[in-house]
């Protein structure tokens, strides 16, 4: 039997199931316990698992990350919530210098099974400091796994996998997707970290997107199919490890690559993906790869301006058209 749940419910359910499965799993963060989370993602968990396992912290992101590190290396499986991913800025050292490098710098003496959940992304009018695609900040830090679910099923399955994972996982929850619905099994499946999903098979162009952009990429693909263009949409689902093989295999068939991302260009995952595929699949390309992304500006507040910043279905579809028109001027 399957059921329809929201992205938000998937996250709550994943945490509850993980806590049910493993006594070592605990959750802490700002307002996650009594209030059930700023986004209500941990609603009911305090009542169900008690104050030992579901804990409110002071407004202290460095302390939250430090607690995750120390408890993970000493045998627990902490889930730490950073309310808005953008707050990673005030605990960047803990994530990038300590958590990511601990195992390496000690020559493998520790494992670090910590999961950090971060509220990510734009589209909800929170302006420039509460809307960023923060996963991009951590791409250049070896030692972190980076997970970016786009559907309720992936949010559930990847969060369960993240909590079981022996390595530190940054789990980015897209705020604009909390209310989106999807099908999951009654006992939903785990999703392996590092496996891309071919969301929609196609033959003319490979379109890669995550989170909110995945939804818009699918909508763009549907619009384009009416024009006779067959788009293969792929969601990597995790950026580290990145399933380049699945995307490369698609590219070998379609010979065209478009990436839709909720980020400006430099230092982004899309730019990294393009660079890697250029190096390994150059011969497969019939057109230059195209990145459809945000402007090189902070994310503006006003609705119409934010809408212009975030790639729309139309902009993504137009990117696909331009890519396919390469070498065939109208």
């Amino acid at each position, binding site marked *: 039997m399957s059921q329809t749940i929201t992205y938000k419910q998937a996250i709550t359910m994943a945490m509850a199931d993980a806590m049910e499965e493993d006594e070592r799993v605990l959750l802490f963060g700002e307002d996650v316990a009594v209030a059930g989370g700023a986004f209500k993602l941990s609603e009911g968990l305090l009542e169900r698992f008690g104050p030992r396992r579901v804990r409110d912290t002071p407004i*202290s992101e460095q302390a939250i990350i*430090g607690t995750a590190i*120390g408890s993970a290396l000493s045998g*627990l499986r902490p889930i730490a919530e950073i309310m808005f991913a953008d707050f990673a800025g005030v605990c960047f050292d*803990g994530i990038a210098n*300590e958590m990511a490098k601990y195992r390496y710098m*000690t020559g493998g003496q520790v494992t670090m099974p910590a999961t950090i959940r971060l509220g990510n992304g734009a589209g909800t009018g929170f302006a420039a400091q509460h809307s960023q695609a923060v996963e991009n900040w951590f791409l250049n830090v*070896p030692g972190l796994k980076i997970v970016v679910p786009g559907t309720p099923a992936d949010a559930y399955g990847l969060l369960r996998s993240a909590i079981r994972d022996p390595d530190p996982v940054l789990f980015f929850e897209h705020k604009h997707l909390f209310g989106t619905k999807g099908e999951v099994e009654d006992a939903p499946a785990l999703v392996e970290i590092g496996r891309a999903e071919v969301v929609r098979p196609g033959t003319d162009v490979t379109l890669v997107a995550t989170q909110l952009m995945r939804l818009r990429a699918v909508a763009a693909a549907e619009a384009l199919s009416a024009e006779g263009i067959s788009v293969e949409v792929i969601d990597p689902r995790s950026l580290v490890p990145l399933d380049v093989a699945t995307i490369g295999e698609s590219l070998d068939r379609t010979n065209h690559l478009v990436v839709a991302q909720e980020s400006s260009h430099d230092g982004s995952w899309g730019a990294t993906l393009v660079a890697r595929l250029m190096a390994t699949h150059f011969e497969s390309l019939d057109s230059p790869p195209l990145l459809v992304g945000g402007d090189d500006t902070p994310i503006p507040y006003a609705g119409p301006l934010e809408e212009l910043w975030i790639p729309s279905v139309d902009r993504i579809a137009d990117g696909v058209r331009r890519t396919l028109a390469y070498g065939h001027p109208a």
Partner: protein
Amino acid sequence: MSTKPPATGVAADIPLEEQLDWLRSMQEIRFFEEECHRLFARGLVRGSTHLAQGQEAVNVGACRALRVTDTMACTYRGHAAVLAKGAPLDRAFGEILGKAEGLCGGKGGSMHLTDMSVGAIGSFAIIGAHLPIVLGTALTEQYEGRDGVSLCFFGDGSTNIGAFHEALNMASIWKLPVVYVCENNLYGEYSPLATTTPIERLADRAASYGMPGVTIDGNDIGVVHETIASAVARARAGEGPTLVEALTYRHKGHSRSDPAAYRPEGELEAWMERDPIVLHERALIEAGVEQSRCEAIRTQAEADVTAALERAMSWAEPSPESRLEHVFA
């Protein structure tokens, strides 16, 4: 807790044999650090190295108040603390020399000595980074219903970084079994404490976290041991964290390249008079230990350090493939 009476250098309630072992440990650390100094001069230590001669009583006195299963985190000036917690001399040298058999397989170096097998969970070179991390190790003990304690060493300068505030506040609000030990050696790098910090007694900061704060003579190993033991007992009993400020002095500069020219004339000499090893030895002799016994300990410590260094020098370099290991489990 209150400030202890003037230095005595021995602990009344600890068997002398045990205190002789403290002497051995301090002597080993002193010889170890002196060898590191020489190795650096010979170009065998990469990067930088931060030595702790003069501060041994804080590290040894505190670590001897812990069980091996208790955890300890320290700074880049951490050779002494990691050895005091029980790491082997040869593998510590091996790490500093970048050898395969070094404590961290040559991936950490002088600033990052770690030996999980003895509870030395890390040496941290980003100021303040470990103060929040010990919240987690302490939480594990509390969570599992065990009575282990986490001890955290850091410098006077480290009390001015934000992580100090977040960590002490949360340790207190969660009543975590942590003992925060500030090694106040009067300088943060080249800056005297008074130029960076508007109060003189760093232990006073404990008041704003609702935890006990105590200032002690960090060169008197008996006082250090007794103070830490009572803070540890408090933590084990579930009564929460303590901040201990141990007054001490580093005999050398901040790091290998620092001649410490900023010190006022006579300051080093005055502190050398209060060398913790000399104080402890003198007190042991006053308590009835034969001087020859202390001398034998010193000679043995020197020989053990020399032999450990020889072993470490003979070890292989890490294999090229090892650089790719341990990124993920």
